């Protein structure tokens, strides 16, 4: 906070920043700048919590209301794929943490390597996800006109009305995993830039704030999935 500012820093004016090119004109000190961007990122993540929170709220209401349909819908998902994807995301979180670590200790090559690894894991995740989506497509589990309740009525012997309610489950499934996937894609695009920038040497030792902030974002996306996995895939597995 303000106490971190020394009297010497106060004297600095726009011109007195001298040496440090990375210090933007309107900040007094590097710490102030770093604290600011870190806080900014956290506040942004708070915003993200509420964004996904809206979806979780809808999920909660309908899960309580249409529990059976949710169970049936959940049982059509592929748990191994979900579990593997969870693992993949955890790996990507680790590599992301390692990337931040590399930036902190100022190893450029290592940073680029871990960013690339994170991106790779992200890509694997999306690949698995698209296989799953495709499966839903062939199963006619996409809400809308082509939605078919046949499987639930015949295989699960669900009454027609319950079978119909699975549409709500799938609507939420696609809304939630879709929003999550979009966040991953955005993250991967940014990661591309980060790799490019670090290749150009934009993050010399001591300048890891950007990487660190991006890491926060990536971990957040991971956390969302940590909740999505049990809530969507594991509602009540047939025992």
């Amino acid at each position, binding site marked *: 906070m303000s106490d971190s500012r020394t009297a010497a820093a106060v004297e600095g004016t726009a011109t007195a920043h001298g040496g440090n090119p990375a210090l933007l004109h309107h900040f007094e000190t590097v710490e102030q700048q770093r604290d600011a961007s870190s806080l900014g990122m956290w506040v942004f993540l708070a915003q993200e919590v509420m964004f996904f929170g809206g979806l979780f709220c809808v999920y909660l209401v309908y899960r309580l209301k249409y529990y*059976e349909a949710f169970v049936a819908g959940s049982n059509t998902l592929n748990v191994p794929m979900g579990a593997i994807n969870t693992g993949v995301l955890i790996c990507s979180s680790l590599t992301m943490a390692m990337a931040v670590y590399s930036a902190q200790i100022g190893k450029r090559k290592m940073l680029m390597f871990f960013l690339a690894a994170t991106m790779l894991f992200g890509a694997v995740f999306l690949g698995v996800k698209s296989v799953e989506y495709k499966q839903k497509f062939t199963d006619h589990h996409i809400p809308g006109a082509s939605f078919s309740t046949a499987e639930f009525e015949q295989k699960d012997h*669900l*009454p*027609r*009305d*319950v079978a*119909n*309610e699975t549409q709500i489950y799938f609507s939420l499934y696609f809304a939630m995993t879709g929003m999550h996937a979009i966040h991953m894609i955005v993250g991967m695009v940014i990661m591309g830039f980060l790799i490019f920038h670090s290749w150009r040497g934009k993050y010399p030792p001591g300048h890891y704030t950007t990487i660190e902030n991006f890491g926060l974002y990536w971990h957040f996306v991971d956390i969302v999935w940590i909740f999505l996995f049990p809530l969507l895939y594991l509602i009540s597995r047939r025992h």
Partner: protein
Amino acid sequence: ANFPLFPQQASTGAPHVDALYFFLIAVTVFFCVLIFGLLITFSLKFRARKGRVATQIEGSLPLELTWTIIPLIISLGLYVWGANLYFEMRRPPLGAMEIYGVPKQWMWKFEHPDGHREINELHVPVGRPVKMTMISQDVIHSFFVPAFRVKTDVLPGRYTTAWFEATTTGHYHLFCSQYCGTKHSAMIGEVFVMEPAQYEQWLSGSAGEGSLASSGEKLFQSMACNTCHRSDSGARGPNLVGLFGKPVKLTNGATVIADEAYLRESILTPSAKIVAGFQPIMPTFQGQINEEGVLALIQYIKTMKDAQNLAPTNTQNPPGPDAGARPAKGMQNPGTQKP
């Protein structure tokens, strides 16, 4: 010419609402006078003049507490009063006369238990509580009779209720007050409050296609409900006789009261609540019976008193959903029955 400033009072609830309204106005006037008065006094007294220097005051804890606690107390009073009123106005008295409403874009359709149907008009007798049970066929509408101070949104997919007891004969505005698309402002009608005798006369006029319950009975047969719901022991479905208003035990252990909402749910999404001791084999009738049909079926089920006795419509409600509701006058229900 016609330039009213205050709405007519034509229901038992209206004076109560107005009383709170006047009290609120009094509170508002009090605070407005207080604050505007202070603003004006200060403006005059402490106007900048030559040599006048402002006296600095940092604040005062006692004052802060005063103007926190007094409004808080007033607020709580208002809350209790308003909530009480609302509670009363949302709880239909025991034995209220029932009328159903099935609005859609952009008309009001009402059905009386004896089979009278009206559009954009609602006839009710004076001095008898009337309970409106309504469901929309498309978007959200809202049933609003200013003279009764009564309003409730009418939702698709779910019953909502309102009740009133008219006190003065005459005709009053009926508005749709929830925005519902192009002709929202044309979705209006009139409520005719009549002397009971006149009302009887109106009822005995063109009757239409028989009572609601009897069309329900026809549906019950044509939809083949009776193949499963019979009163003999071998029936696949539970016996519906005397069901309305009774508690029902479900397979999941819970108990629910068989009210309109439950009956509707049982017909359209039968597997939502399974009666204990039965299999979830009842098919859904969603898309096959419209809301009016469902209401007719419900009305029919309500009248199933004992086996195969097509009881006359609109006998008193059994206790149950209304248990604990205060008794209302006009409980007996003469005249709605037809020979």
